[in-house]
């Protein structure tokens, strides 16, 4: 081989190696580069002490309490489940939660929580001074609030990963979620004009607009919400049956199958609903209430279900 | 010496005059009785003097206009016994009479030893000692009337107003109550203005009568002068016989019209 070519190849090799070395030594995991929703202050690094948001943990927590059903699912998915000692009474997935002590997230008893001697408490909602009270008792509290979009969900998983010393696993889980969801989204044909949907929260019926988390997910999958613009400023409007008739959505999603025993049959039986396109073409999708209201790893299942519904509707038409 | 002068007194309710052009002059120790049919304005006159309704005209007590006085100051000058006084059932007699001392106790203060002495003395004077700690709800009609008078006297006011003081009492108690008032006004030199239905009693106890009709004084003077059967027929619409006793008492006796209507 000519000497100049060797030098050139060696040089390229060196360049590539130095680039890789540089990116490794910055200490930032690959996943965080793509989550552009990460705030500048949160430094997600491996190892303790770790700071996420306002909370700094000195050592790896061994007694974790989760007061959020979504956080519970996330914790178990990233491998921190064996260190969870108590959950709230809505945490029902995975199975292992059945044997755990249940707490009330809406009327929390601070003394009872502190008696369990936790070294990390995760909440999604503060009913009033809870964070302040727990902090006074020197109990570390992290607020994993409801997220606005998918990016927020991925970030939260990684935040929990950092706090529990399961960062690598968390990054794995979130990037797997991301790639699966992206793949499903890409595989759906985006109709033009887009398919319309009605998302039912309860039978009265209350619905959501695209401005909510679940609405945003639907929008990413190329669906148009019939409730958008109906009531300015209200993201959880109660639609009248007339409006639904008039807009005649292509798909109806039921998020009240468990709470309120709704199904395709009960919807078809409602006065006037029998004539809707979604009813006659069998495009009523029954979702699991829990999966539909949480933003944890089971989001993938939700997206898959929605995608299947879209595909089948497009196939019929 | 206190004197009560009323000139051109006028009281209006919603644009309607219930009293107009009333003139009177009273000196200490005098008892004026207001008579007249229902709605004549007797109560309105008393309430105007007590500061409970607005009036126009000139009312002066001892040369000072009543209208210019504050609630407290007026309460020290005029004591008002309403027709149906409110007597809280579980208040003690002593506490109730003590209410009359309110115009002399500062708003945020307590009653003084002197106030307590005055109340105790009054209770003795009106023969209520036995009832001093009794609760008002346990008293009979006659006793209640004495208690209310005691409260009015506790105000130490030179003017005493009585609205139908006898309507709820039986004959015996009526007499007792009126005798009591008479005795008190002489001993304390009070100016007494009362409104009464019973014309005979009115004439018997008061010095002068004022007959009101539709808000206007239509007759004034002694019982003999005012209580005449023509006068009564005209303003009361009653057919009555007026008898003059030897001792000066004027007795009004309603007559049955003999089956003619």
């Amino acid at each position: 081989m000519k000497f100049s070519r060797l030098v050139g190849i060696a040089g390229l090799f060196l360049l590539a190696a130095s680039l890789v070395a540089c990116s490794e030594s910055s200490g930032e995991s690959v996943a965080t580069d793509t989550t552009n929703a990460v705030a500048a202050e949160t430094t997600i690094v491996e190892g303790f002490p770790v700071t996420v948001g306002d909370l700094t943990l000195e050592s790896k927590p061994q007694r974790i309490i989760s007061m959020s059903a979504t956080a519970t699912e996330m914790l178990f998915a990233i491998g921190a489940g064996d260190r969870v000692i108590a959950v709230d009474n809505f945490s029902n997935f995975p199975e292992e939660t059945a044997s755990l002590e249940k707490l009330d997230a809406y009327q929390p008893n601070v003394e009872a929580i502190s008696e369990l001697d936790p070294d990390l408490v995760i909440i999604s909602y503060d009913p009033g001074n809870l964070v302040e009270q727990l902090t006074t008792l020197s109990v570390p509290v992290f607020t994993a609030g409801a997220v606005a979009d998918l990016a927020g969900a991925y970030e939260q998983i990684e935040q929990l990963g950092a706090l529990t010393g399961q960062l690598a696993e968390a990054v794995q889980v979130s990037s797997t979620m991301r790639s699966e969801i992206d793949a499903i989204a890409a595989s759906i044909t985006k109709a033009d004009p887009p398919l319309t949907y009605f998302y039912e929260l309860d039978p009265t019926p209350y619905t959501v607009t695209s401005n909510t988390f679940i609405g945003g997910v639907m929008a990413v999958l190329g669906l148009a919400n019939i409730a958008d613009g109906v009531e300015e400023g209200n993201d959880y409007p109660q639609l009248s049956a007339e409006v639904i008739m008039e807009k005649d959505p292509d798909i109806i999603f039921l998020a009240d199958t468990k709470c309120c025993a709704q199904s395709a049959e009960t919807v078809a039986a409602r006065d006037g609903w029998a004539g809707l396109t979604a009813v006659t073409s069998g495009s009523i999708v029954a979702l699991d209430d829990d999966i539909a209201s949480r933003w944890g790893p089971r989001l993938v299942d939700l997206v898959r279900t929605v995608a299947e519904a879209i595909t089948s509707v497009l196939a019929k038409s | 010496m206190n004197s009560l002068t009323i000139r051109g007194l006028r009281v209006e309710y919603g644009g309607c005059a219930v009293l107009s052009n009333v003139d009177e002059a009273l000196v200490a120790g005098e008892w004026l009785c207001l008579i007249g049919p229902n709605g004549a304005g007797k109560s309105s006159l008393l309430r105007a003097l007590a500061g409970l309704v607005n009036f126009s005209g000139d009312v002066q007590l001892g040369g000072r206009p009543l209208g210019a006085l504050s609630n407290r100051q007026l309460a020290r000058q005029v004591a008002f016994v309403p027709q149906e006084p409110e007597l809280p059932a579980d208040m003690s007699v002593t506490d109730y009479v003590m209410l009359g001392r309110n115009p002399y106790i500062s708003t945020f203060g307590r009653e003084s030893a002197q106030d307590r002495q005055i109340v105790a003395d009054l209770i003795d004077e009106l023969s209520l000692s036995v009832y001093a700690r009794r609760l008002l709800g346990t008293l009979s009609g006659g006793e209640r009337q004495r208690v209310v008078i005691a409260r009015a006297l506790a105000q130490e006011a030179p003017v005493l107003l009585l609205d139908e003081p006898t309507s709820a009492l039986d004959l015996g108690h009526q007499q007792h109550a009126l005798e009591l008032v008479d005795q008190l006004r002489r001993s304390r030199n009070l100016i007494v203005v009362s409104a009464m239905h019973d014309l005979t009693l009115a004439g018997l106890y008061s010095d002068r009568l004022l007959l009101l009709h539709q808000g206007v004084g239509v007759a004034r003077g002694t019982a003999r002068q005012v209580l005449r059967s023509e006068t009564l027929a005209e303003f009361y619409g009653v057919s009555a016989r007026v008898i003059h006793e030897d001792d000066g008492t004027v007795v009004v006796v309603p007559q049955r019209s003999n089956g003619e209507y």
Partner: protein
Amino acid sequence: MTTPTVFAASRGSRAIWWVLGAVSVVVVGLLGLTLGPAGPTWWRVPLAVLDRLPLVSIDSGVTDAQWNIVWQIRAPRVVLAALVGAMLSLAGASYQGVFRNPLVDPYLLGVAAGAGLGATVAFAVNRDATATWPIDPVPLAAFVGGVIAVALTYTIGTAFGRSRSATTLVLAGVAVTSLATAVQTFVLQRNNDVVRQVYSWILGRLTSATWGDVRLVLPYIAVSAVILLMYRRVIDVMRVGDDEARTLGVNVNLVRIVVVLAATLGTSAAVAVSGLIGFVGIIVPHAVRLLMGSSNRIVLPLSMFVGAAFLIAADIPGRILTSPSETPIGIVTAFFGAPFFLFLLRMREVRQ
């Protein structure tokens, strides 16, 4: 109210009730510090409290962490319960005095509805914008709402001519309450996601009591209580009715305004931190009257003691019975309220 006895109690026998009142507050307060689902064993707590007194040193065996529970979690609850209980009872007794009706409660003139509306609005807009505020907007909004509602009631009530009677005010209060409730329902309809929080607030709770809350309400309640207690002799004079009280030298309208304002100030502050705790303002003054007669000179201050002890006591079962959850205190007081009114009903039947 019919008379339970023929004679009024003498001065001497009344004095003992003050002592009993004060002692009961202290005893129940200590109980409140002692009982709870966590923390040190119960008999260690009084020892720990004594240990904290200057010049006293006892080994109570209570760790710092456990003492934190007693002092940082339970103590503010007990103190707040005492303040709120005393305030609501005093306000209730004062209203009952100036409106001459033993069944009015401190929420009469629209305070409850106004505070509820304020809290609802605060919850509805309490999103990211206000999350960074140094003070919690909910108590502030509740307080402002309560005061505005009563001001509105007073304006409406006195605008209709000369009839400044108590009844007119009460009717105006009903109107304002209806309006505020309607607006509140409308706001909730448009902000469905905060229904749960609003409901929880309305039920009343002392769970989230902190020393900060105590500091927040103390000045308002103190000022309100002082004013109301100062007027108690005059409120007694008003027992004979507006007209007679006027002839006795009382400026009835002024007294009523001042009492309403002062009571509203204190009640709004109490509601702001503890939500709508019902029944206290009616039950306590009524019970005191049954025992001591209707003289407001005694009923007003004694109601404060009894109200404080009552609410401290009512707070205890809520945190123990359903642990690790909490039962809102409004439910506990309601549980007391129902049988109490039945008892009152029965007493009236017996008398008649």
